[in-house]
């Protein structure tokens, strides 16, 4: 059976459902999260005790400071603190 124009359009419309809202929201937050990360690194460079707390237990130290650690940014923070 051949496919009409409308059927083809409908079939292709169905190929792009929305991404989960939480994922989109997290991605939209990247610039703000990246700025937070830069601030954390700057503070860690100036404050030895803070740096030590981050290296000892990164997620706990971030949560204690009121940050919500996003996995990919935590990974990047870990990398930057290691240098």
């Amino acid at each position: 059976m051949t496919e009409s124009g409308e059927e083809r359009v409908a079939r292709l419309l169905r190929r792009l459902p929305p991404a989960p809202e939480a994922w989109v929201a997290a991605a939209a937050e990247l610039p703000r999260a990246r700025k937070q990360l830069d601030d954390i690194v700057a503070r860690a460079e100036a404050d030895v005790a803070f740096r030590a707390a981050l290296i000892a237990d990164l997620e706990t130290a971030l949560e204690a400071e009121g940050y919500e650690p996003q996995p990919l940014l935590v990974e990047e923070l870990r990398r930057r603190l290691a240098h």
Partner: protein
Amino acid sequence: MQTGDATSPALAEILDGFARDLPAPGGGTAAGIVAALAAALVTKAAHASSESWTEAAGVLAQASLLRDRCVRLADADARAFAAALSALDGKDEALVDRLDQAAEVPLQIADAAADVAALAAVAAECCEGAFRADAATAAVFAEAAARAAARLVEVNLTVTGGDPRLHRAQRFVADAAASAARALDAGR
């Protein structure tokens, strides 16, 4: 399936699955399958009318989606029902969630079946004459599926008298019934 293949092995196997002395697949899955079958009949009527009815292609696209949706829900019902039974047996901590899902899926089946009935009514009014009875049949089947699924919502343990899901299920049944009546009138 060709003419005369109504008792093909594949169909017999599906029917045997429902006939077994096991809780699943049960009424919810059957309702989903009946609604999907109704959607397939709408597809037939629309396809046969592609030359004479300008909206046939649009109706066909919708019937195709509704068929997929009903099949997915039929599968989901079997899984949700099995999970609920398992939770009841094992005093699962997620019991309430599992039972809730066992009510949610038939509610969605009733909603989808109401849509199939609505689409079938449109087809019964506009499709090629030779296929109007098929479209009307589709509407009647879809109404039945909506009623069956709504009943399953009612008997679910987590759904009590004031639950808004009961009202929604009843609304879907009313929608489906109105569509079926319209389709049967059109077919006369």
